[in-house]
């Protein structure tokens, strides 16, 4: 464990600007967003989390994968797109979002499949997180067993101790940095403070919100009567999925004029009606019922089965921003109460 005076830390961070681009939470009209930082004072009082999740840095809302040109009488020219290669520091990531990066890694940089664009961005990025001291009313990371002081997914986690930060590393890259000045080993006093904070957060951690029922047979979970009810108020917009740090579905479309074009990958959402629309006109998820069920089960059943972790980090963005107040926490609670339905 290490520590650093806050002023020294920001001086050090500023010193990184030469070689690296830095994204930090900046307050805009609409809320905090990760935006380029060029060294001026950061306004972080009132910062709980960014409006948009951190996935944008590795898996942007849209990107061109290739460009092509077709000239008469010549073979088609295809140009690959290179994602930005300038090393990046992401500062101010919250522990829930840091965890979401680990989850996305399993999808885009796992043993089965490696996405070149994602990987290049990911490997070029150094994540410095800020532990949470005051969670928002929509936060529920602790209900999913994630600590607001967790370092998983961060290269360095900073914990606010008043005039200094306690610094913990979760990677070798992070550890190497912390071993050097201006970081110094944590004093016993700082460590005590950290332990006290941990104690508080452990006390606050409630029982897991993920209901037992979801580890049961899919054939039973799939037909629970609650799916027939909960979807009705959903507008089938993409707010929850686009603001979700772990949602990672995308679409690929060609944008062409007569002689040239580009192939674009853009976020897609299982909440949209045309997400599963077939060319034939058939839609296997014809109504909101199937779509809501997909979103809930993907996060809490299919993803755990495929990647051994729940694909929700409790950041609460979907809860806070849903236009009709669809609250995933309520759904989980109701699923928890469905045990009786199952035995029927």
């Amino acid at each position, binding site marked *: 464990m290490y520590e650093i005076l806050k002023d020294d830390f920001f001086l050090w961070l500023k010193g990184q600007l030469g070689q690296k681009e830095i994204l930090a939470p900046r307050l805009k009209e609409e809320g905090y967003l990760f935006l380029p930082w060029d060294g001026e004072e950061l306004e972080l009082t009132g910062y709980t989390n960014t409006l948009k999740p951190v996935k944008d840095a590795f898996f942007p*809302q849209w990107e061109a994968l290739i460009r092509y040109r077709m000239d008469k009488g010549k073979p088609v020219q295809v140009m690959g797109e290179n994602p930005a290669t300038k090393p990046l520091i992401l500062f101010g990531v919250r522990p829930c979002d840091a965890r979401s990066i680990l989850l996305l890694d399993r999808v885009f940089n796992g043993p089965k499949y490696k996405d070149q664009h994602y990987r290049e961005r990911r490997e070029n990025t150094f994540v410095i997180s800020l532990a949470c001291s005051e969670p928002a009313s929509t936060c529920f990371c602790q209900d999913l067993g994630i600590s607001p002081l967790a370092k998983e997914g961060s290269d360095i986690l900073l914990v606010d101790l008043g005039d200094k930060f306690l610094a913990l590393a979760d990677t070798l890259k992070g550890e190497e940095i912390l071993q050097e000045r201006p970081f110094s080993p944590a004093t016993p006093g700082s460590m005590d403070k950290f332990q006290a904070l941990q104690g508080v957060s452990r006390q606050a951690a409630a029982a897991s919100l993920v209901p037992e029922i979801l580890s049961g047979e899919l054939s039973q979970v799939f037909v629970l009567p609650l799916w027939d009810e909960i979807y009705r108020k959903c507008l089938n917009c993409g707010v929850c999925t686009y603001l979700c740090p772990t949602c990672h579905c995308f679409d690929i479309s060609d944008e062409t004029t007569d002689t040239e074009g580009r192939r674009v990958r853009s976020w897609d959402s299982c909440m949209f009606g045309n997400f599963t629309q077939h060319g034939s006109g058939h839609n296997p998820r014809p109504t909101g019922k199937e779509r809501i069920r997909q979103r809930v089960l993907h996060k809490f059943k299919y993803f755990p089965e495929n990647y051994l972790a729940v694909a929700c980090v409790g950041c609460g963005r979907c809860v806070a921003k849903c236009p009709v*107040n*669809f609250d995933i926490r309520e759904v989980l609670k109701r699923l928890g109460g469905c045990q009786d339905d199952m035995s029927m």
Partner: protein
Amino acid sequence: MDKCIREIRDKAQELLETGQVEVVIGFTAGTLPGKSTPCFITRGEDCKLLVWDEGCKNNLANYLLKEKRKAAIIIKGCDSRSLVNLLTENQLSRDRVVILGAPCPLTEGCEGCQIKSPVIYDYLVSGKAGKTGEDDFHDVKTFARLSPQERKEYFYKEVSKCIRCYACRNACPACYCRECFVENNLPQWVGKSTQLADNLIFHLTRALHVAGRCVDCGACQRACPMGVDLRILNRKMLLEVKELYQFEAGLKEEQELPLNTYDPGDPEPFLAGGGEA
């Protein structure tokens, strides 16, 4: 408002228990402060869960489009105008819905709102709606006084926030196209990126598609997670339609929508040279 919600609950319960409707669409308490959430009640005893308060902001008329059961709906002024529009456009059949009108529960109300009590209903809940003021469109007029460059910069800045989640479109009762132009892919009119150009084309086209049908309920803007100022576009269209064609959407049934018709003497300010041949 106590009396108001009691009447709503009693009437809703009666409608369900006498089998006049299969479902009541209203609001129940939400999970966040200041937010009530739309609900679908099918049992008479559940009607006590209904609320009518500051948090009841969504435009419920939207839900009737998907509702296959015979439904009762609890609506305020702007929802009722949307409903009238849907009837006018043959998207609903009047005998499938029982309308429980109630005065708008928002004490502050929305700027420019003129219709706080329902314009169409089967039962009207007693209670007084808040005051309405004359809508002088001062927001639109003030904006129009900025220089073209300033207006363009503002509009580009607002639209650049958009993440294309389509919450605005899906929250809008006037946006009921089975297939939206943004989802067309043969040809693909609007790109799927959030590049400024695609965002601009989406928002401008949408404003034009709902022109003459928009009732200024504000659902689009409230639904937007990024706080894009969408209402200014809609209100510009509202003002134009009102001044040019003396039309306000959703006020009475069976009026022809301004963009479905014409007058031989319509002004032609759009012509090259301002209309003189």
